[in-house]
């Protein structure tokens, strides 16, 4: 169906497209789930809508309520769109070193922004948001890192859509941030087709982001369940940029930088499958388009230049 009562009703139902040029052979194939085709242009529309609807159903969100969320981008943009349609006020806590496009987009959809220090990245945004929530008990923090509705959106939506379009799927590759996508899709396939392997691609940032991390008190999202994942790759900015450029050059798909990291892990899996001589149909997530990241310099110049420009940025 392609007719909807409103924009919010059109979340999900995204296309799955093959990658004829980047797939190693007819036996080992790559498939891209185009989540940039959601209303605000990212996979986060699914989680944002699901979290708001769950909070409404629980009676936590009532008309005129204020939503608070630590987010450096896509979740905030998705929440802002849904909140504007439902009459909620939204306050986003985001690290000061996130791209200007994202701030403009958030303000455009009516969100207010509170900046958290760049050092410490999203951990710091989470810490600041938790403090604000404690000081303002009437604000509703949906908290994407620990909200089961985040994973549930993918259990009920993303995963069954992929399963219907690609029943022969052997591997699913997604990005590891809040872990919502991997937890939801992972749990669905564990229940419905347990031989599907779940592969995580985790972005690896520059020194600035890790600099202050204490090894005894790090951050693992409350949603994360290691048993739902079969392998986990750490992908640096150089590989992410290289792959995101290959994706647009070879297949015409213009994606954001985090998708480059996911494609890197998907190609690593494809190489493993090819080497072991097994058939593979590998589905990976295109999280969003590249538009919001043009100012990062990731799409122009040499890889060295792009890598230098991304150092210290939260590129995924």
């Amino acid at each position, binding site marked *: 169906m392609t007719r909807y009562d409103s924009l919010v009703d059109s979340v999900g139902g995204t296309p799955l497209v093959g990658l004829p040029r980047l797939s190693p052979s007819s036996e080992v194939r790559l498939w891209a789930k185009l989540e940039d085709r959601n209303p605000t242009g990212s996979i986060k529309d699914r989680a944002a809508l699901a979290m708001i609807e769950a909070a409404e159903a629980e009676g936590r969100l009532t008309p005129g309520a204020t939503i608070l969320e630590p987010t450096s981008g896509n979740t905030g943009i998705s929440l802002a769109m849904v909140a504007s349609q439902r009459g909620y006020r939204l306050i986003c806590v985001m690290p000061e070193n996130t791209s200007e496009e994202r701030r403009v987009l958030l303000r455009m959809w009516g969100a207010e922004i509170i900046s958290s220090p760049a050092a410490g990245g999203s951990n710091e945004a989470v810490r600041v948001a938790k403090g604000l929530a404690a000081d303002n008990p009437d604000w509703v923090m949906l908290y994407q890192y620990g909200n089961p509705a985040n994973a549930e959106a993918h259990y009920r939506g993303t995963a069954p859509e992929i399963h219907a379009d690609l029943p022969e799927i052997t591997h699913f590759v997604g990005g590891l941030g809040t872990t919502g996508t991997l937890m939801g899709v992972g749990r669905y396939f564990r229940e419905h087709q347990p031989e599907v392997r779940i592969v995580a691609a985790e972005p690896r940032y520059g020194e600035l982001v*890790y600099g202050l991390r204490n*090894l005894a008190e790090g951050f693992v999202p409350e949603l994360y369940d290691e048993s739902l994942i079969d392998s986990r790759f750490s992908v640096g900015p150089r590989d992410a940029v290289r792959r995101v450029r290959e994706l647009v050059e070879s297949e015409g798909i213009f994606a954001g930088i985090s998708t480059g990291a996911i494609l890197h892990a998907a190609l690593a899996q494809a190489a493993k499958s090819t080497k072991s001589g097994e058939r593979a149909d590998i589905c990976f997530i295109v999280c969003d388009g590249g538009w919001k990241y043009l100012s990062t310099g990731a799409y122009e110049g040499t890889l060295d230049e792009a890598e230098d420009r991304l150092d210290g940025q939260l590129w995924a």
Partner: protein
Amino acid sequence: MAIEVRIPTILRTYTDGERAVDASGDSIQALIEDLESRHAGIGERLLEDGEVRRFVNIYVNDEDIRFTGGLSTELSDGDTVVILPAVAGGAR
């Protein structure tokens, strides 16, 4: 057998400020023992009760060892090991 180990900022006090050091071992367990012999104290920051600490991630050629056999993950000459603190995702 030389394996490059990248050290996070927080642990460079043990490596005289070096970002990367060479170590040897045919498994992560052996590698950490070798690291400890060269940089006393670092082992305790990585392990707790014989396991990798919850907020420490160790990668061999970019793959998380928790999914490749943990401390018994095998190493070969030329592998790269990266140690990182666990952090929240970026643009979420």
